[in-house]
């Protein structure tokens, strides 16, 4: 009897019936966090009440390291920021130094850079396609995405000797001219990419379960996106037409015929679709650039020792993930920068995560994180 009474008294504090929020630690070692990212989720059943993102597990101090490196050496640091879009990173940096020094880049080098960067954009979006399928539980997309990405990597290897971390763009041009047979190889690649794109569309874009999982998930008001500084496909999916290639054109983008696709709803499905349509657009851009690829030198007239004059420049470009900016301060007469500030698109896009995830299901958290398509190398730098 004594035990019975004791049990009755403790019913209200019985841990089996007491309702409580569950705090769950997702990451840094978790298959769906795309690297070493950590979210502390507060759950009410399957609903997410709150989320606290923790970053910094991959911090290498790139900005500080850059202050101790020669201007030519810093390209390697940029390779390692967004490590699936190396050319795009290198390009923004070398453009910053070229602007500071007033170097003229020969047209052939400009075309080579553009072709490689757009191919890299396709490769990056294909990686997104594959891993996004995995985030939602489908296995086929990753095979399709990686197969086509591998073909692009093969071209990169032929040009630069490396599959990633190319270190191929130089201040004033590119390291060396393209290998023989580059143009036909890329044309064949584009045909393969087009057929692969159709395959990808049939696998995921028109899959009913995929639509149900992504439509209406993770949308927040466009004004909030702007306040957070979100850029790239995530912003364009919400209907805001901001693409650095259009808004602040650089290189030869103004002379090419392409468009920056935008969505309407800003949900995960629109983000996915914007990236898929960008693959189409990038294929068209590469096609045009190949047609008009001029002959000539691939390096401009650059002094042997790079010493930009005193002053600061800000240069930005459209990366696969958004607006990558480089703010370069030179004290004049030194071979290293005084300060190098990087504005990373993944970092800024990630800031909006908490707003998007709150109130959603646990399963939506990975879908939303996947739709932001972050690369931790660039978030943590």
């Amino acid at each position, binding site marked *: 009897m004594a035990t019975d009474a004791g049990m009755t008294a403790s019913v209200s504090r019985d841990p089996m019936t007491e309702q409580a929020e569950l705090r769950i630690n997702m990451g840094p070692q978790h298959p*769906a966090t795309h690297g070493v990212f950590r979210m502390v989720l507060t759950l009410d059943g399957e609903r997410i009440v709150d989320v606290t993102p923790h970053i910094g597990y991959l911090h290498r101090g790139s900005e500080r390291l850059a202050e101790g490196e020669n201007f030519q050496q810093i390209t390697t640091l940029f390779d390692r920021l967004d490590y699936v879009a190396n050319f795009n990173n290198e390009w923004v940096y070398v453009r910053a130094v070229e602007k500071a020094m007033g170097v003229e880049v020969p047209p052939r080098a400009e075309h080579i850079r553009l072709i490689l960067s757009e191919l890299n954009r396709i490769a990056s979006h294909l990686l997104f396609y594959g891993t996004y399928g995995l985030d939602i539980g489908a*296995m*086929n997309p990753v095979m399709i995405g990686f197969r086509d990405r591998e073909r692009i990597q093969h071209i990169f290897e032929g040009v630069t000797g490396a599959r990633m971390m190319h270190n191929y763009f130089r201040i004033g041009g590119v390291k060396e001219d393209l290998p023989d047979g580059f143009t036909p190889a890329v044309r064949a690649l584009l045909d393969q990419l087009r057929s692969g794109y159709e395959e990808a569309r049939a696998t995921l874009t028109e899959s009913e*379960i995929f639509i*149900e999982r992504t439509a209406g998930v993770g949308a927040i008001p466009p004004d909030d996106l702007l306040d957070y500084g979100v850029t790239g496909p995530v912003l364009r999916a919400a209907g805001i037409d901001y693409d650095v290639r259009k808004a602040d054109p650089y290189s030869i983008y103004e002379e090419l015929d392409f468009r920056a696709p935008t969505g309407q709803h800003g949900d995960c499905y629109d983000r996915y679709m914007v990236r898929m349509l960008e693959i189409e657009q990038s294929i068209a851009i590469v096609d045009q650039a190949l047609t008009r690829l001029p002959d000539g030198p691939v390096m401009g007239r650059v002094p042997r020792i790079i010493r930009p004059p005193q002053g600061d420049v800000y240069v930005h470009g459209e990366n696969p993930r958004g607006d990558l900016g480089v703010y370069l301060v030179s004290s004049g007469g030194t071979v290293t920068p005084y300060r190098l500030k990087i504005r990373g698109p993944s970092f800024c896009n990630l800031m909006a995560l908490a707003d998007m995830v709150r109130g959603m299901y646990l399963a939506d958290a990975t879908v939303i994180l996947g739709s932001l398509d972050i690369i931790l190398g660039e978030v943590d730098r």
Partner: protein
Amino acid sequence: MTLLDLITIAVIVFVLFNGVLTVVLGVIWAERKALARLQQRVGPSRTGPSGILQTAADAVKLMLKEDVRPGSVNRLIFYLAPLLIFTPIFMLWMVLPFSSGLILSDLDIGLFYVVAILGLSVVGHVLAGWASNNKYALLGSARNAAQLISYELPLVFAVLAVGLLAQTATDRPFSLAGIVEAQGGVPYLLIMPLGFALFLVGALAETARIPFDIPHAEEEIVGGAFVEYSGIRWGVFFLTEYAGLATMAFLAAILFLGGWNGPFSDQFPPLQPLYLILKISAIILLVFWIRAPLPRLRIDQLMAFAWKLAIPASLVNLVVVATVVYAQQRNDWELWLAGGIISVVSIALAVVTGFIIQRRREQRLNQFRQRWAQ
């Protein structure tokens, strides 16, 4: 019970145990090969011809691995849970008939036995998730319990309809062997396609296969209830999952595909297990095929599908079958009329519901096609 009986039992258990293990190794290998072919890969190819020994090698590796037990688990339940998941599957294989002569135990209520034992495995999952003292494991086991409760109903209703239907042709309608014999002419797949579809969906959900693998969901809760298990204990979970798949395919073949019936199977009984294996393999390959391209559902969508569609549809199926069978047995024109009216109404209801669902689905798909038509 004499010593001979004990020895017989021991031999039977030994043979059955190893038989199931061999089947599971085969199923795992088949899945890896089939998935690889569907994804333009080769799959295992180094261990033995076509990599057929790869799964055996993996099992040996798992057995040699250190058995890690986190300090905070409830030791007794943690060790008990794999056994509790493992045992029901073997209990099921006791009553599964391999041919008209090769049946270990032909229960008169085999169908009810199967349904009852199927529900048992969730106990092991819940215990494993709770004993692990891990939040991911807890979430996984809670999801597993919710999913099993929801999908048990359409599954059981579909199975019940099979029992009812078998009454027309056999006097042992709830024995698995009786059901197979009742399907001598036409397999029930052709008579009740809706029942087969519901059974398949329920089986997918119960074995937690894609698109219903929410209890495991590696990308969300990193494997669910077995997060904390390692070595051969984890191997037992893995093995049980595939044994469950094989069992479900076995049941589908028996209940809906006519079991061991096939051309000349009566005149030449050794053909019977062959037909059965062919039918089981077909179902298993169908499940692999479903797995390759499909994403995973979310838990609320899964529940909505079960309660809004699968359970009402299974009830309609059951009512139609029951009415027709009742009318056929009484052979009374009033009952035929009543049965006819109910059947027509039920079928009409099912068709209208299906039509509405299909139209909504089309509208939604079109909406998304138009969103990006520009």
